[in-house]
């Protein structure tokens, strides 16, 4: 039997863990938070874990030999283990960064450094030059596009991209001419942050590996919402952020195959990441330490581990089923409003818990403002995916996105608030 959405009773209990959900906004409206794709809220369990670290074990980890330093280091490394297991990985395959953007930049800069013979890497896998290609998609968040634009600019490699279809899927018609022996990296998103489109990761990864390309997966919108296992996906690199999955701000995660981490040149340099240092030059610690320059984000890691435990206790299969039910409810509601154009696939099996839409004749900013006036928080604009919006011929869109704590009543509140839009902006609509 497939997993069930959360019941009303379960939702009430779950929501009580998130203090912010009890607040009101804009003159007393209960907060209807449908922007979890941008950042999720944090349960007390995560806040307590982070506070607990600062209150009892705060220390600069991996330095010093006093008791607090030992305990802090232990807390940090056991958090790494919990977070690694959450995506089916081993602790030494996980690198902590400040956010997912930095995780992707770490990989992109490894190629730049490798090209110039720096960063302590070895082998020739992390090199790019004229004639080499990096393949991305038109669907990418800017965080998985601009680092590759810049890496190509620095190395002379060529950036290519997989286009999107009008209904917001990857257009794989010409994949064989885009993904070739010249392709060194194929970087793409697991789930579109705008459309919720779920991409066929395994199939794309097999195609990439067949031509010898490395696969970098942006998993920011999948790891919080559906079961993700790195071995099952088969990718080479996977990046996600803590704050979108009930964890703290200020921590991102890069997972990579151990052999790749070993070969890969470093990005940020400084304290913590060294083996030996002389005035002439330095050697670097084994991964993951060599990628974690500076005092590590220990409290954030402890908070994120607590978030992983929290989500595991809920069950990712149930979280996914719950968000799918909410997505279906919203898509059905929007389908009854012909003045709303939904972007992205209409097949629920190919989508995650984000729904972007356009009200033709009313800019997304104005739609969002009317929703906000009713206490409904959504994202408006291009959601850091400007090329995708251009491809879909939308200047901007309004996006509702869900988390485990989102409720059917909140979907209804969004639809009710949306119904204020046509009259307010003088749209002629058949009701």
């Amino acid at each position, binding site marked *: 039997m497939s997993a069930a959405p959360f019941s009303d009773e379960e939702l009430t209990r779950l929501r009580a863990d998130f203090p912010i959900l009890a607040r009101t906004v804009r003159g007393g409206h209960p907060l209807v938070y449908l922007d979890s794709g941008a950042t999720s809220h944090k349960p007390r369990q995560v806040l307590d874990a982070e506070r607990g670290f600062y209150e009892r074990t705060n220390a600069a980890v991996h330095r010093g030999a006093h008791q607090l330093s030992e305990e802090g280091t232990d807390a940090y490394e056991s958090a790494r283990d919990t977070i690694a297991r959450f995506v089916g990985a081993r602790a030494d395959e996980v690198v902590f960064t400040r956010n997912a953007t930095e995780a992707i930049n770490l990989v992109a800069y490894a190629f730049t450094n490798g090209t110039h013979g720096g960063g302590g890497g070895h082998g020739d896998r992390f090199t790019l030059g004229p004639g080499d290609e990096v393949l991305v998609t038109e669907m990418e968040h800017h965080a998985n596009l601009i680092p590759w634009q810049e890496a190509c600019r620095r190395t002379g490699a060529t950036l290519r991209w997989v286009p999107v279809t009008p209904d917001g899927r990857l257009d794989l018609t010409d994949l064989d001419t885009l993904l070739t022996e010249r392709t060194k990296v194929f970087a793409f998103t697991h789930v579109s942050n705008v459309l919720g489109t779920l991409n066929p990761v395994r199939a794309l990864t097999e195609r990439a590996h067949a031509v010898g390309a490395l696969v970098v997966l942006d998993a920011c919108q999948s790891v919080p919402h559906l079961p993700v296992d790195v071995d099952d996906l088969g990718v080479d690199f996977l990046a996600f952020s803590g704050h979108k999955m009930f964890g703290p701000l200020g921590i991102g995660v890069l997972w990579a195959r151990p052999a790749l981490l070993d070969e890969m040149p470093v990005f940020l340099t400084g304290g913590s990441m060294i083996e030996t240092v002389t005035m002439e030059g330095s050697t670097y610690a084994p991964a993951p330490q060599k990628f974690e320059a500076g005092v590590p984000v220990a409290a954030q890691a402890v908070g994120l581990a607590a978030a992983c435990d929290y989500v595991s206790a809920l069950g990712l299969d149930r979280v996914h089923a719950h968000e799918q039910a909410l997505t279906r409810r919203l898509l059905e509601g929007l389908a009854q409003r012909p003045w709303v154009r939904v972007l992205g696939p209409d097949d629920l099996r190919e989508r995650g818990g984000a729904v972007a839409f356009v009200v033709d004749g009313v800019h997304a900013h104005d739609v969002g403002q009317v929703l906000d006036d009713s206490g409904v928080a959504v994202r*408006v604009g291009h959601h850091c995916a400007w090329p995708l919006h251009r491809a879909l011929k939308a200047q901007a869109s309004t996006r509702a996105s869900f988390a485990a704590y989102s409720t059917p009543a909140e979907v209804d509140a969004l639809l009710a608030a949306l119904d204020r839009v046509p009259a307010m902006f003088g749209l002629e609509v058949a009701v």
Partner: protein
Amino acid sequence: MDLYQELILEHSKRPVNAGLRDPFDAEVHHVNPTCGDEVTLRVHVSGTGGDAVVDDISYDAMGCSISVASASILAEEVTGGSVAHARETVEAMRSMLTSKGEDPGDEEQIGDGVALSGVARYPARVKCALLSWMAFTDALHQAEGAQA
């Protein structure tokens, strides 16, 4: 909601003097990167120094009702007046929009611009309202550079 006064919606639906026209002395393109609002704006100035007059402001504004209405109000209030008056009007608009609601706006100076006073209480929208005014300032500067 006090943000969307009738006057704003009227300006956004039927923007005054919209479209790009010749002749012009400078053309600029400004964007609001948070939401993708864009404006292309041309300025035509005649005379110099104290006698300089804004003969025409023509524009193509794509964006939310606030940004389009604001471009329309700019064209309405500033076209045909002196460059000195235009600068004072820009400053008065900027002051009102960035005042967080403290400055209600001087109707003598900014005319229909006072209808945008509600924007000042929504920090995320201030950029939308300022976009065409900043573009105009930029274009004016370029036009004067071209004349010199």
